[in-house]
């Protein structure tokens, strides 16, 4: 889905313009919003920018706190998506995703019942499930945030007094996995602002499971995909 940006209704020029708009929003607006949302303790935040509407939602709706006690092939998959950007118009074959950013004004004609923003949404969230190795960051990481994943199998405890909105540097301890009574430190995979906690304190976690989101501070200079790759390599 990531590369299927070829909705027939739109000309290449329109597509490029949309991509540029999405990139600009992702690079400039989203980090600030994410920080604001994390610090505010609010569940959701929506702003309007030109003909685009950006909506952020904390993944604290129960989907996020996944327990390995559920069937494991889904255990390993991350769903929490704090930020996503949608593009106007439908994509053929695209799966419906909850719209996060949608054109505020009706964009190009949308066939009834198939409002399926995808494109950039997939780009933002589409790096999940790659081969995370160091337990640093990976599934669910996006251009605007990096997810700290579990370095071991055990029970997760976030660092005391580590609140959403706090600034952390790469390598700062952000919690620990209790493995048979021995704590294994979890460190921030990147500089940033502590965002949503994906698992609840004391929850059992598997190796590589997303624990905590770190929202990036500065807009990334590189294109979105490149940023995400760099984050994966962290």
């Amino acid at each position, binding site marked *: 889905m990531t590369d299927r940006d070829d909705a027939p209704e739109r000309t290449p020029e329109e597509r490029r313009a949309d991509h540029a708009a999405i990139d600009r929003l992702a690079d400039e607006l989203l980090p600030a919003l994410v920080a604001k949302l994390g610090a505010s303790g609010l569940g959701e935040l929506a702003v309007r920018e030109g003909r685009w509407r950006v909506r952020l939602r904390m993944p604290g709706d129960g989907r996020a706190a996944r327990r390995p*006690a559920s069937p*494991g092939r889904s255990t390993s998959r991350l769903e929490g998506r704090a930020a996503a950007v949608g593009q106007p118009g439908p994509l053929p074959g695209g799966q419906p995703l909850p719209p996060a950013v949608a054109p505020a004004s009706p964009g190009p004609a949308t066939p009834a019942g198939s409002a399926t923003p995808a494109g950039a949404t997939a780009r933002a969230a589409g790096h999940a499930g790659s081969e995370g190795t160091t337990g640093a960051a990976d599934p669910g990481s996006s251009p605007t945030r990096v997810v700290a994943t579990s370095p071991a199998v*055990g029970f997760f405890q976030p660092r005391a007094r580590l609140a959403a909105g706090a600034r952390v540097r790469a390598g700062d301890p952000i919690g620990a996995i209790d493995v048979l009574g021995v704590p294994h430190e979890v460190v921030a995979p990147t500089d940033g602002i502590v965002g949503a906690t994906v698992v609840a304190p004391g929850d059992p976690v598997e*190796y590589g499971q997303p624990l905590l989101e770190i929202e990036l501070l500065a807009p990334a200079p590189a294109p979105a995909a490149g940023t995400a790759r760099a984050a994966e390599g962290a």
Partner: protein
Amino acid sequence: MFERVLIANRGEIALRILRACRTLGIGAVLAYSEADRDSLAAQLADEAICIGPADARRSYLSASALISAAIVTGCDAIHPGYGFLSEDAGFAEAVAAHGLAFVGPSAEVLERFASKEGTRRLLAAHGLPTIPGSDGLLRDDEHALAEAERIGYPVLVKPSAGGGGKGMRMVRTPRELQAALRVCRSEARAAFGDDSLYLERWLEENRHVEVQVVVDRYGHGVHLGERDCSVQRRHQKLIEEAPTPALPEAARAELAERAIRAVVAAGYENLGTLEFLVDRDQGFYFIEINCRIQVEHPVTELLTGIDMVATQLRIAAGEPLGFSQADVDFRGHAIEFRINAEDVAHDFRPQAGTVERFWAPGGPGVRLDSHLYAGYEVPPYYDSLLGKLIVWGPDRPSAIARGRAALDELVVDGIITNRAFHRAVLDNPAFVEGRVTTSLIDRVGGAAFLAPRS
């Protein structure tokens, strides 16, 4: 019986344990490394939990990761399969210390049988003949040379820990021995973390015959007959069959009975395999014991109708064996072919890649234990076993005929396997006449079997 078992292994044996759990009505949780996320067992298990990265030292060989995974998923037992931590007394002890059951012998029993050299002495004391060998472990090169002289060349240098042919060399002269000691020590240290070696007299033209035993916690044990594993390459078994063509029925019965008497007397428990070398004159010598389920256990299952993994789980749960020697019937002949991702034409080079097509053979007396499926990516990190084809027939010729047909039916595209090698062995007169010795393939070379026959 257990409620939920953690499967601490991968590949075909993970699937085999899963199947045993299902038939016993036990929940099965699969512990997998990141490289095995898409494995068939991970998809079929009631639950699957990622325990670490592809590197086995941080996943399948990590005692803490496995035990933690069992606790996190609410398991009450861990089945280690074969290889990895299956015979590790320290692991068995840690599992028990966390209130979980280890599906295998207790730590104390594993400890008692951990040293090959010590086990030889122990079982010799209980009446098993052993190969003349060095007086204990080799202290240094001088001791090794003196002992080799006393035993008589050629001798086999063997590591006290581990198995699988690592750190093992046959030498014919003192000079070869000195060179081999260095190599074997470093191989043994790398593979088992223990570089102690001992010597054994090398028996020419020998066959590898092993006896399957099963002993419950109450000292009640039976043997499940023997298997012949003489088709080997560099001490790696490729084909196993039962009954052995090397011994007449009376000798087979005597071998099995002496084996079960000795291990019961020595206090063994759970499933185990005693390996023997059988020489030209049908003399047999005990070499080592494997304290776990074997790769080739289906051969015995087809002959006896006993589900050995289920039996292993029942014994580990503290149940009595529930049958006696008189209840065990041996019917017909079974042969197992290890289907490996290996390029026989290029010195059995291991292969990795994606299985594009996979057709399993079938029909009467045909069983395939394999974790393959079309689209499965064979990871490069682990052993090359893709599965096992096991055939049964009322007698050896009919088992061979079914083996030929089944191997012809088996299709694995996208990755090179040793299927053609097995097919060629089934047309080889030495195999058909039951004359294969353990050194045949190393002497002739695997590629020779693949050469077109006129």
